[in-house]
């Protein structure tokens, strides 16, 4: 196509045009790379000072390597505080919440998209309106409800909140996938005398594995990083998750930069690792979860 368009111009114009596009192309490229560097540099700096002692942090240039990396910073924060405990809490709360959210959302989405009943659109609407509700506007009553039920300072309060608030987004990503499932599958199953439950668990759910994986990762990132619910509902160190635990831990160590850096690195490494392995699914899921709104 390009050569065709160029053929319409005199030779000089075509060459100048080509040179301009090449310069322009390089300029655009530089812009994109500067942006990438901007997004990464703070994290590189964090990694560097997590391996330094205070003297090196304050005396070396910010992006200089320490002469000898202080890996003991990581050992120290892992053994001295409750980081291990927080880490474990984050893991199991995230796993249970994600599993519950994806399973419950699959049930509802299946019932809405594949089964016929009055009010299915109303129910769908109720879930979708949930997308627009700010967490903060429910926080005070949730706190007093959990207080009355003796659920404050328990993981149950956190898990219930995560599942409820993640259901709408999860359903939104699942919806498109469920609508696209072929009718023939169900017809064949019903002909063979298959019950709805059997059809759902044996046929439909396995077919949606890819989209379930996507929503699981999106949910995982959200739950792993969630702050305000844990900060409000959980008071004892024993039940805190990594996000809130890190915040308190750093509050006690305001001057030891190496320890702070190591703590922060520990809290973000799992997510970075998952991203490294599953980045395509994550990118796809985030795009799907937002644009379809």
């Amino acid at each position, binding site marked *: 196509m390009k050569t065709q368009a160029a053929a319409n111009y005199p030779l000089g114009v075509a060459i100048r045009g080509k040179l301009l596009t090449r310069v322009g192309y390089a300029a655009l490229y530089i812009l994109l790379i500067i942006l990438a560097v901007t997004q990464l540099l703070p994290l590189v700096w964090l990694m560097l000072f997590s391996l330094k002692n205070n003297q090196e942090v304050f005396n070396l240039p910010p992006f200089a390597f320490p002469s000898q990396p202080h890996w003991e910073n990581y050992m120290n924060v892992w053994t001295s505080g409750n980081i291990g405990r927080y880490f474990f809490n984050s893991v199991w709360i995230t796993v249970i919440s994600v599993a519950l959210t994806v399973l419950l959302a699959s*049930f509802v989405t299946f019932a809405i998209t594949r089964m016929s009943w009055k009010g299915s659109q109303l129910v769908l609407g109720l879930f979708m309106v*949930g997308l627009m509700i700010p967490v903060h506007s429910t926080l005070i009553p949730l706190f007093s409800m959990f207080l009355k039920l003796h659920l404050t300072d328990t993981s149950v309060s956190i898990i219930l909140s995560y599942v409820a608030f993640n*259901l709408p987004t999860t359903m939104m990503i699942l919806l498109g996938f469920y609508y696209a499932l072929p009718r023939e599958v169900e017809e064949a199953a*019903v002909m063979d005398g298959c019950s*709805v439950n059997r059809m759902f668990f044996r046929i439909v759910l396995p077919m949606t594995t890819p989209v379930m994986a996507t929503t699981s990762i999106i949910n995982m990132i959200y739950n792993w990083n969630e702050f305000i619910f844990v900060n409000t509902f959980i008071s004892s160190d024993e039940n805190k998750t990594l996000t809130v635990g890190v915040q308190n831990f750093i509050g006690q160590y305001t001057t030891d930069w190496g320890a702070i850096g190591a703590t922060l690195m520990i809290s973000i490494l799992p997510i970075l690792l998952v991203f490294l392995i599953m980045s395509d699914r994550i990118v796809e899921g985030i795009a799907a979860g937002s644009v379809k709104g």
Partner: protein
Amino acid sequence: MEKVMSNKLVIALYVLPSLLLLFAVIYVPIVLTGYYGLNQWNGIGPMTFVGLDNYQHLFTDAAFWQSAWHSLLLALFSGISLIGYLVVAMILSGKIKGANLLRKIYLIPMLLSSVAIAQLWLKMYHPTNGVLNSLLASVGVHNPPEWLANPSLVLLALFIPIIWQYAGFYILIYYAGLKNIPETLMEAARIDGASAWQIATRIKLPLLREVINVTIILSIVGSLKYFDLIYVMTDGGPNGASEVMASYMYHQAFRSFDFGYGSATAFALLLICLVATWVIRKVTATSDTIQYS
């Protein structure tokens, strides 16, 4: 078939658990928030019904309006930065080598917890040892500002990491939207002699309109209810200079134990978010739907 797929018992079993959770954690609390707002209550003792007193107080509360103004500034700031993200996504969606890798790099900050980001940027802004002022000192700036302690700089200093956090998210959404536009349209335009600028403004932008509308809603409503980073980095300080609506609500309820007034603030936040969504929808509504032909 029809009979199996409209089995009332199965539908109830699939839908009710999630629906109950949705009501218990989102809808009932919202109603309660509105109701608590009509009371004077410290969260534990008896409630005293005071009618619309709290809501009236909200209207004349200078501190609330100041926080609302800050939230609005953040919304404006985020809204304007969308233009930049759109430009980057346009460039990225052109024939750029490594576009896939770049947009993944841009996304990384968004995957990290607000606490980790907040703590990292607290260190970046550190008056003497932070990377920012170290770099300023190395180019000969002798009195670099104390970013977070300076009331006239603190908002800007907080907005920058928020922008940094979400840049990749919006670039990704625009990129996904742009990739959905059939390549044949652009090819046809190129054959007709359209320039890159014309293709961008006359074809890509109009076709991206729906996606742009969604991002405007996401960014403005997200800004109005923004909380995490500000709460961790400055806690609304110095002296209220960086208080936003959500942090103001949180302070009223969980620090001053004025649950009635906090609830009124939370309810106002909800209404503002819903009205903002509605207004943006109205303003950006198009009568003509886009069709790829």
